[in-house]
């Protein structure tokens, strides 16, 4: 075995990466607010009248974020939330999710009726110099 593809299936992947994106966005927003003014997790906690440890656990992903708590955090930072649901941008020259999962219990998923065992690498990708190429040339 020279490589291991960690694939949890598109449903779990979608959920996990969405949660990660929300947390990353909160961390980024808080970091920007900190730069702009003397704003901190403590300021957020004071404004929301909760303990700072709760804010810390929410930002680290150790406490679940509800829609209300997300809205409260945005309000406390004087920010608006932009949410959009749209169709995936699938087309030529773009990676396609694999059809299968390495999770034993998950069913095999077939996308668009076609199984694609591996994600093709776009020939003219925006990020043309891959990490592997950089490692070999280093």
């Amino acid at each position, binding site marked *: 075995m020279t490589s291991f593809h960690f694939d949890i299936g598109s449903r779990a992947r979608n959920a996990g990466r969405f949660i*990660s994106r929300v947390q990353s966005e909160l961390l980024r927003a808080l970091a920007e607010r900190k730069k702009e003014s003397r704003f901190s997790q403590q300021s957020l906690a004071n404004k929301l009248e909760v303990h700072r440890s709760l804010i810390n656990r929410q930002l680290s992903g*150790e406490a679940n974020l509800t829609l209300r708590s997300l809205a409260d955090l945005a309000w406390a930072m004087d920010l608006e939330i932009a949410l959009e649901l749209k169709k995936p941008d699938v087309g030529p020259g773009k*990676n396609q999710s694999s059809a299968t999962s390495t999770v*034993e219990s998950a069913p095999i998923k077939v996308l668009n009726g076609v199984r694609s065992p591996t994600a093709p690498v776009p020939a003219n*990708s925006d990020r043309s110099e891959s990490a592997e190429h950089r490692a070999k040339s280093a």
Partner: protein
Amino acid sequence: MSTFEHLVEANVIVRIDVEMGLREQPMRLLYGTPDFISWLNSVLAGAQPSNRLGEATPTEQIDQLFYNFLSGFPLVHMRQFRFIRSEKNAVWELKTPDIRIFGWFLQKDCFVCVFGNWADEVKDHNLYRGYRIAIRRFRRELNLDDTFCVQGVDPSDVISL
């Protein structure tokens, strides 16, 4: 003396990848030892921590961690990665709410995963020192010289931020 190719050919380290997004290629590299791959397989088979903290499942947490790392996204120092001890050839830790992964940076943006465990296990039993010593021994037994380990402990020494 080992070379990078020798390590891969001898199955000492195995390349790890995850499904990338649209128009994305890996901007960093991730490797794991066969024992670490076995641990990943145990998580994929449904292993769970005794007290899960994160909303995402352990497999989802690992997927998002690997994806963020491989995609080249900025990682938050201390919250998502940190060194165990400030020293030459340091051992580093990748973090999610429920998972800790220990290893070292073979070069900048290239991490080798050696041990994975639940965060509560690591914290309850204070396993940091043990993992650090085990990884240093692992590298020593492979006869890896300094060129196989990032020397600095500044976050920008090990990943492109």
